[in-house]
């Protein structure tokens, strides 16, 4: 849906605030002051409530006393019915608020022409008396129906309008339309009135897929800009609560770089420090993928920091949430006891997405929550039609941001389909700042949980799939192994891990062994070196000995030869000397 981008509507002094925050926002300040507004809607569409709120706000906050002309119900009943809204009409009554019973007598007989002169005279007197500035005609059609024909109706409406304008009263006329739709508008008398008045507001109450849906639309506003779209609204404990995507003048949201822990240490690391404060986090996955556990971990971490936290559980009862999370080491009971955490089981609560959003807001305000978990958003967002649920999701995130509430939502994704292909009727995924997807990996007869970060705005984040391990000690993430293009988890991961551990040990032993062997070899060589050295020494000694011996021998030899020569007498032997 394409939304028109518009600069915030400027507040104009010529407007009478209604006290309905969203309404004053879309009309730029309220109803046209001193002019007449027509409020059209079917039975039970909230016309009277809106009108009363407008009067009560005027009387209390704007010093503008008011008159309520009741054509439909006795005034005591109107006051009584409004008692539940806490406007304290009784306090305001008589001095600042006046209720006029103006139901036509049922047995009245008509004969000839008549007009509203009596009523206007009475109102004139009362207006003077209390100094009224605002006036409501509730279900004017009841009295118009008495008038004999279209011409008379037109004349009386004109008279009424003239009277209001002349006294510069801010008038609000409510008209019933037949059926649930405001489709009958355009028929007389409202058709004529629409042209006469300065502002027309249409309330619509319809039922979409068994869920009640209320819408408000400003159809016309003379001399002022206004938001033309249908705005969903609720009738809550304080009256009308009109949903506007963003209140004008508050466009600049505070952006923070503060990080808050996700409750899982390694996940914080994967996210570069945790979620951003005020971010909206979406956790998707099929059932049993530990979405609740992950959001519980976040809640626990928030409470540990002492931040007030709200936990909406649409799946489980309060005690179940506590017990189930305690089984994985997330102990929330102590935080519930000290008032830090509030768990709201909402399984049995039905209603449109709009109603739920209203509840979130009210409870968050009551608890002054800084962190909030909605587990899961899927259940309530599907009640009612998709387009409105979409709008609600948008506003939920928008509201959480503007309040600085860190919001964690879980969402069921059917099957193990990829989150990107898997149909997300509620396009919360595009709005969320961080999207964590949990899935199962079935492999080797096991089902293991995998966690991946699909996106995380403004954050460097890990691209790796991690295994999510739940134990009674808490939630941890483990690295996964990829082998042959397949991610290994669970036992296979463990096997792989232990195999690696074994291999590592073996390698260590082998190294040790090698060193010992080398040492031995070294020692052996050293020994051999020593032996050789000894040998060398021996040889040297031997050599020295040899040299000496050789010399002696040589001397001896020469001496010996001489002697031998002498003995032989070969060289000039002396005669006479012969051997026998």
């Amino acid at each position: 849906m394409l939304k028109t981008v518009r600069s915030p509507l400027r507040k104009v002094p010529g407007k009478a605030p209604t006290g309905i925050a969203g309404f004053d926002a879309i009309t730029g300040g309220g109803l046209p002051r001193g002019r007449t507004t027509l409020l059209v809607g079917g039975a039970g569409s909230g016309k009277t409530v809106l009108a009363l709120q407008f009067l009560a706000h005027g009387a209390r906050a704007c010093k503008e006393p008011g008159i309520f002309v009741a054509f439909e119900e006795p005034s005591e009943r109107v006051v009584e019915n409004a008692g539940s809204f806490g406007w304290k009409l009784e306090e305001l009554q008589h001095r600042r608020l006046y209720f006029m019973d103006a139901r036509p007598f049922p047995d009245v007989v008509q004969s000839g022409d008549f007009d509203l002169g009596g009523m206007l005279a009475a109102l004139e007197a009362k207006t003077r008396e209390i100094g009224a500035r605002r006036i409501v005609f509730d279900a004017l059609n009841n009295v118009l129906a008495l008038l004999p024909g279209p011409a008379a109706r037109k004349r009386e409406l004109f008279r009424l309008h003239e009277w209001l304008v002349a006294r510069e009263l801010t008038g609000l006329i409510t008209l019933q339309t037949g059926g649930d739709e405001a489709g009958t508008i355009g028929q007389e008398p409202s058709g004529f009135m629409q042209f006469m008045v300065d502002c027309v507001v249409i309330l619509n109450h319809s039922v979409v897929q068994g869920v009640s849906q209320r819408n408000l639309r400003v159809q016309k506003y003379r001399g002022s800009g206004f938001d033309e779209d249908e705005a969903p609204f609720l009738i809550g404990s304080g009256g009308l609560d009109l949903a506007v995507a963003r209140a004008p003048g508050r466009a600049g949201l505070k952006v923070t770089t503060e990080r808050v822990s996700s409750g899982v240490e390694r996940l914080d690391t994967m996210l570069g420090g945790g979620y951003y404060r005020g971010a909206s986090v979406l956790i998707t996955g099929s059932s049993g993928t530990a979405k609740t556990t992950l959001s519980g971990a976040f809640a626990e971490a928030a409470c540990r920091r002492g931040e007030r936290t709200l936990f909406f559980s649409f799946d489980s009862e309060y005690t179940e949430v506590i017990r189930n999370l305690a089984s994985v080491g997330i102990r929330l009971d102590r935080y519930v006891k000290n008032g830090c955490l509030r768990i709201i089981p909402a399984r049995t609560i039905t209603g449109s997405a709009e109603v739920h959003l209203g509840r979130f807001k009210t409870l968050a305000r009551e608890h002054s929550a800084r962190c909030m978990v909605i587990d899961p958003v899927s259940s309530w967002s599907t009640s009612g039609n998709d387009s409105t649920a979409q709008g609600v999701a948008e506003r939920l995130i928008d509201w959480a941001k503007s309040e600085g509430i860190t919001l964690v939502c879980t969402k069921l994704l059917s099957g193990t389909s990829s989150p990107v292909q898997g149909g997300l009727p509620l396009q919360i995924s595009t709005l969320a700042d961080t999207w964590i997807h949990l899935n199962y990996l079935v492999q080797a007869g096991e089902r293991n949980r995998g966690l991946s970060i699909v996106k995380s705005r403004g954050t460097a984040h890990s691209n790796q799939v991690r295994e999510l391990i739940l134990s009674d000690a808490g939630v941890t993430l483990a690295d996964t192994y990829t082998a042959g293009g397949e991610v290994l988890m669970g036992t296979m991961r463990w096997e792989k891990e232990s195999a690696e551990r074994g291999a590592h040990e073996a390698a260590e032993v082998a190294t040790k062994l090698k060193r010992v062997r080398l040492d031995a070899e070294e020692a052996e060589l050293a020994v051999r070196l020593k032996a050789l050295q000894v040998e060398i020494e021996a040889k040297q000694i031997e050599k020295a000995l040899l040299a000496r011996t050789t010399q002696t021998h040589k001397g001896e030899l020469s001496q010996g030869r001489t002697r031998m020569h002498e003995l032989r007498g070969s060289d000039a032997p002396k005669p006479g000397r012969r051997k026998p």
Partner: protein
Amino acid sequence: MSRPARFRFRLYVAGDALNSGLAHANLTALCRQYLPDRHEIEVVDVFREPKRALEDGILLTPTLVKLAPSPTRRIVGTLGQIQPVLQALGLEALAP
């Protein structure tokens, strides 16, 4: 035969508005014709006595209230159509 009941009327008018004047004239004529000497008419101008109009719950003018004999009846309009008026007042028998 008992004396016929005396009729007490109160007519709320809005100043000198045309409708109101017509109603006053029509009522006077009707009384003269059907209830001679047994009627009382009180005229209340809502502009002069708005409090009274408020208290009596008078929204539409002109309004004729028959206070007596009971039951009380309210008729709005100029009283131009005589038939429904006589019917409302329980005077059909006197109608021509």
